[in-house]
């Protein structure tokens, strides 16, 4: 399976600006820039898209693992927080923290924790990322 996206940049790195587009059209000449990335400028940035990809992948994987164990979630909510720090003068993605809250009828906390841990370890985006991945998973209410 192949998935495509593109970036277009005009002008210099700091003052210029870019746009991002994806195959599905969800991003369609969506602005991004140095200021949107390293400050609070308007637009998206690569790091939040990685966080979204990871949150999405983990959550779908958890849904599959629950189904495989005979459970169906009413709702799974995951927040991914990516940390980008300077390491030896280079910007480095050092970690992603996943916080997930789930409503799953009939499951106990231990089984849920086991499945969430499996989803964290095995989802394709987790395996793609060479960064520390941490998880806080709990059943809601």
């Amino acid at each position, binding site marked *: 399976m192949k*998935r495509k*996206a593109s970036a277009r940049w005009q002008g210099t*790195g700091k003052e210029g600006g870019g746009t991002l587009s994806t195959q599905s059209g969800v*991003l369609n000449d969506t602005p991004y820039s140095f200021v949107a990335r390293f400050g609070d400028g308007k637009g998206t940035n690569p790091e939040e*898209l990685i966080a979204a990809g990871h949150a999405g992948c983990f959550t779908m994987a958890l849904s599959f693992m629950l189904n495989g164990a005979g459970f169906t*979630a009413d709702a799974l*909510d995951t927040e991914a927080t990516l940390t980008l720090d300077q390491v030896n003068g*280079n910007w480095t993605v050092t970690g992603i923290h996943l916080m997930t809250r789930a409503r799953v009828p009939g499951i106990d906390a231990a089984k849920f924790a086991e499945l969430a841990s499996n989803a964290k370890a*095995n989802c394709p985006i987790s395996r793609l990322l060479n960064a520390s991945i941490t998880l806080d998973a709990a059943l809601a209410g």
Partner: protein
Amino acid sequence: MKRNANARWQGSAHDGSGALTVDSATLKDTPYSFKSRFGDGRGTNPEELLAAAHAGCFTMALSLALVNRGCHPEMIETKARLTMDQSNASWIITTIHLETQARVPGLDGETFARVAEETKVSCPISKVLNATVTLDAELLV
């Protein structure tokens, strides 16, 4: 620096549906599902967001690297194509291919190729990926 994203899933893995949101609101309850990921259903998927992040990161980094060498890039455009394959029944992201074209007045092709290759190795998203990253770089005249 921290970047956040959120995924919400309801229902089973095959027939349920999800939504992705990022801090910048570039994605805001944007639908994704099994069909938009593994078929041609409407909506986004984690892999195209990763491809967009990588295209975006590489392109901004290339612009910065060229400016650092005293060049004035007018335009840089990069396509990223991510490949995900099944291996031992699990999905693995194996490669991301970057195809970049740039207009940089006064720059020679050899220097451009070298800077592009260095950027492929050193941009923060390339460094966080456990996948083969390949590059075709073309200097437009």
